[in-house]
């Protein structure tokens, strides 16, 4: 099918983008990489009257270091972020997650902010952002506000973004804990690079004596939005992360995992693979930290 007719504007600044958004009211929609939006338009699940193309807004592109954080502008292509030396060095979990996002053809257009703003519950970028406690900058003609990623995702395809707001920057604060960092990313999908039936992301730091100084565990794809498994994190903090500890901690999470059923998998199946993936991702991160590869 073809998209219904719409007006098209191509601003060159964030201020102009925000002005167009407020003019358009709820009927305007931002297009960045278009890898989620254009299929929705083609299937007529979305019918905006105005598309605001932010691909030529220079201030919405690029990766920069800002104090104790790495900032990724919303319209930075996934392929650019994946190849970016700063992302690889400072955000190894995001780099790992990005290699699971779509295919080369879609990563060449798809953006970091576009994936987050579309809030598919199975999307990998949101899952990594949640583990890394990202902060989202939301801009409108009235000003800017910052929303922690944990409050950003509301339900499938729904975020804290108001209709007149544009996601401008995603800020990844550095962890204060020092030691050996390890990351794990595991997912199960029907086809390689497809959206996940369930996926787990883990970021951890081991201190000098090999104990877990801090760990973040997030789970996506199973339920309506990605979630942090805080009970697992609490159980493993300060531990040695041996296989037994990981199995016991993951079992804690199993009953609390909210999972959905659809044509691809039942809730019970999702819950089961979620537990396995979480355990594998923690072990992967531990092994990486022990080997000192980051």
């Amino acid at each position, binding site marked *: 099918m073809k998209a219904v*007719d*719409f007006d098209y504007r*191509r601003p060159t600044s964030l201020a102009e983008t925000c002005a167009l958004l407020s003019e358009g009211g709820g009927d305007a929609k931002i297009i960045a990489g278009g890898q989620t939006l*254009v299929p929705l338009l083609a299937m007529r699940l979305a019918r905006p009257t105005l598309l605001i193309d932010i691909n030529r807004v220079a201030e919405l592109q690029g990766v920069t270091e800002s104090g104790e954080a790495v900032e990724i502008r919303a319209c930075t292509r996934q392929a650019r972020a994946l190849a970016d030396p700063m992302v690889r060095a400072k955000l190894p979990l995001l780099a790992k997650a990005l290699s699971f996002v779509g295919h*080369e*053809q*879609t990563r060449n257009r798809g953006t970091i902010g576009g994936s987050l703003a579309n809030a598919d519950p199975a999307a990998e970028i949101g899952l990594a952002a949640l583990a890394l406690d990202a902060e989202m900058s939301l801009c409108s003609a009235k000003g800017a506000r910052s929303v922690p990623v944990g409050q950003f995702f509301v339900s499938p395809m729904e975020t804290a973004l108001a209709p007149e707001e544009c996601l401008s920057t995603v800020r990844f604060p550095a962890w204060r804990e020092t030691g050996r960092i390890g990351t794990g990313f595991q997912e199960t999908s029907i086809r390689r690079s497809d959206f996940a039936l369930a996926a787990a992301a883990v970021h951890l730091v081991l201190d000098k004596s090999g104990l877990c100084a801090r760990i973040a565990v997030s789970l996506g794809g199973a339920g309506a939005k990605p979630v942090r498994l805080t009970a697992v994190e609490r159980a493993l903090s300060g531990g040695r992360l041996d296989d037994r500890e990981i199995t016991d901690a993951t079992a804690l999470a199993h009953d609390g995992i909210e999972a959905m059923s659809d044509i691809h998998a039942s809730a019970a199946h999702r819950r089961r693979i979620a537990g396995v993936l979480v355990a594998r991702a923690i072990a992967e991160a531990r092994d990486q930290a022990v080997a000192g590869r980051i």
Partner: protein
Amino acid sequence: MSQHRIDLTVNGKTRSATVPARLTLVDFLRETLNLTGTHTGCEHGVCGACTVLLDGEPVRSCLLFAVQADGAQIATVEGLAPDAEGLSVLQDSFCELHALQCGFCTSGMLMAAHALLTRDPDPSEEKIREAIGGNLCRCTGYKQIVEAIALAARRLKGANEPAPERGGHGG
């Protein structure tokens, strides 16, 4: 209806047109420019049949509106062959190793493979499989496509290798 004037380069030629905002790049290529080598498959970004190069990088032309390609360099399958009579080394390898049957996915496969070989002249089998991971083929089982891309890579490096002998399945 919002109409937009666009100027872009397609296979080295400057093309200009006035297009409605909702016209996808693949429809612009096929219906406005009559470049029907790029195929429309699923029209929602799943199959990869419409893969073209946008400023040298493979993208899905059904997920881009023509107006967004204003000022861009586009390469399609029609631009691969060195002249009207011949085929490129990659296209030749596809023919020789029976890397196509119905041909529907072929132009997308060729563009994805062309982008790979431009970037990486000596790709591993894993890299080849990854590069065409976004392109669906329902006939070949992919094996011959992977072999054809590997053969093209060897030939382009100057190894000048003949096609391997194949069994008598015809094809």
